[in-house]
């Protein structure tokens, strides 16, 4: 894959929207191409910077004004005939659609600006260590219980029955992601520590397999996640399972 093919996909990649092979192809290219890595780092920094912007608290007077306007609107609403109120329930949809259109246009403009900005980056060699680009593919999965339900679960009873499986999927996806990061980090560990890590994983995997489905199995998944995360984040197997 060439730089021209990768650049337009960087935003989607960093946002975790490229799944499976599509994500790994981009990741593979980033490992080899310093220029694209530079662009990816820059873009990630921009994203982090936007997230880090402080939240501005509105002045208290604003809330008083809003309350006053709400009260006035309620009084006006109460004076309207019933049929007008029913009609008014449908009317707000139009501005919402218009607002949605504006948002969509803004998003397209932002993506265009980002990709073109990336194209203008100078093609220079970069020897800085590359942070691991943590593929957030599983973010969507881990948040699935919040928003998405299996297509078949269109009734509350079926949806409730699918809860445990969704949770297990979230844990499994997170564990898979962390194991991939650990595989990258293990090159820095000594042979002894690699062996210790492997043995511990065998033990934790066995605990998951043996646990009864439900909370017991979820506990076993969490133990594995905590251990692998410790190994990845501290980059040190000896500290991964530390229990003071």
């Amino acid at each position, binding site marked *: 894959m060439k730089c021209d093919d990768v650049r337009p996909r960087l935003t989607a990649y960093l946002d975790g929207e490229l799944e499976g092979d599509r994500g790994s192809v981009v990741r593979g290219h980033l490992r080899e191409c310093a220029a694209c890595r530079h662009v990816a780092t820059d873009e990630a920094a921009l994203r982090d910077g936007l997230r880090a912007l402080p939240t501005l608290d509105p002045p208290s007077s604003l809330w008083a004004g809003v309350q006053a306007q709400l009260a006035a609107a309620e009084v006006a609403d109460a004076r309207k005939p019933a049929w007008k109120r029913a009609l008014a329930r449908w009317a707000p949809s139009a501005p919402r659609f218009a607002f949605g259109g504006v948002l969509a246009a803004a998003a397209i403009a932002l993506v265009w600006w980002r990709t073109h900005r990336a194209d203008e980056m100078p093609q220079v060699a970069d020897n800085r260590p590359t942070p691991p680009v*943590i593929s957030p593919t599983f973010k969507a999965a881990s948040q699935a219980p919040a928003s998405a339900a299996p297509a078949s679960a269109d009734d*509350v*009873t079926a949806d409730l029955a699918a*809860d445990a499986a969704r949770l297990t999927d979230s844990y499994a996806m997170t564990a898979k992601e962390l194991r991939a990061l650990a595989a990258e980090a293990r090159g820095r560990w000594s042979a002894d520590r690699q062996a210790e890590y492997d043995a511990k994983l065998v033990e934790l995997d066995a605990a998951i397999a043996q646990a009864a489905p439900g*909370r017991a199995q979820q506990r076993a998944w969490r133990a594995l*996640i*905590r251990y692998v995360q410790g190994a*990845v*984040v501290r980059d040190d197997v000896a500290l991964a399972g*530390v229990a003071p």
Partner: protein
Amino acid sequence: MKLAVIALLLAGGAGLAAAEPVVERSRLEVQPGGQPIKQLAIENPLGDVKIEGYDGASIQIETRKLAPDDEGLDRLRVSLVPNPDGTVRLTTTADGGSEYRKLPRGAVRIDLIIRAPRDARIDAVASGGHLEMLNMDAGGELDTASGRISVRNVSGELVTNTVSGDTSLVQVFGTIEAQALSADLSLDTIAGERLVASVNHGKIAGRRIRSRHVELMSTDGRITVEAEAVLRGRLVVSSLTGDVEVRLRRSSPVTIRARGTKVNLGNAMANVKQQQDAWLEAQVGRVAPGATPALVQLSSRHGNVELVFIE
């Protein structure tokens, strides 16, 4: 024609009025049987759960059910099983079957407000609802999928787990273990023997942390914490790609170990020694012979590390 339009609008209005949800509220009190109530297990995948400790011996439960219509309301069940051994189990569910019309999960809700004896241990599970525990003395285990977890004024052994619900622990005293996959974690006024908290995607913010052994870990989030180095204690704060910022109160000697893209150890920078394994190490305060100083270990492989001593 005009009449037809008005009739249509009136019919629509009637339909909208019929769409108003139906709410049912109930209260129940469970008196202890042979033994005092020692443990309360709650499972409510359909809404919020609030558990509040009080000085009484019984359990008081307020239930609020919400559904689009009476049939939906009839499907919502709250079951309560008090056992003679002092445990009480409270679960909610929705009846299913081909005799019922399909009902989306988002259209129904059961919220629980529970007052329980302070010394009962709580084991609560929610899904997308807010799980809240207040004023309890025997800790518990709280699990959610995407719901927020809030704990305030609780002591004992506490475990919280969530996939994507933000977690807030305030005034918690004891042994604490908190884990989140994609969520933020907020800690305020924590003390006790041990605090182990990890988030995978998300940030950790803590202040007034006084536990003896503290481990805070995030894979890609920033960690900011104001903590006290306790004698012979240990504070380990690590992130893979996020920045680590620690404001440290110190009343005893401290050994500091730090590693990051850029490391700033404030006043301790003057004593820093570079170790062979790329860690920076510094000793702050005089260690008496045979004494064990507190250990503060801060690391971020791809982020910055900053330590500030505060009075």
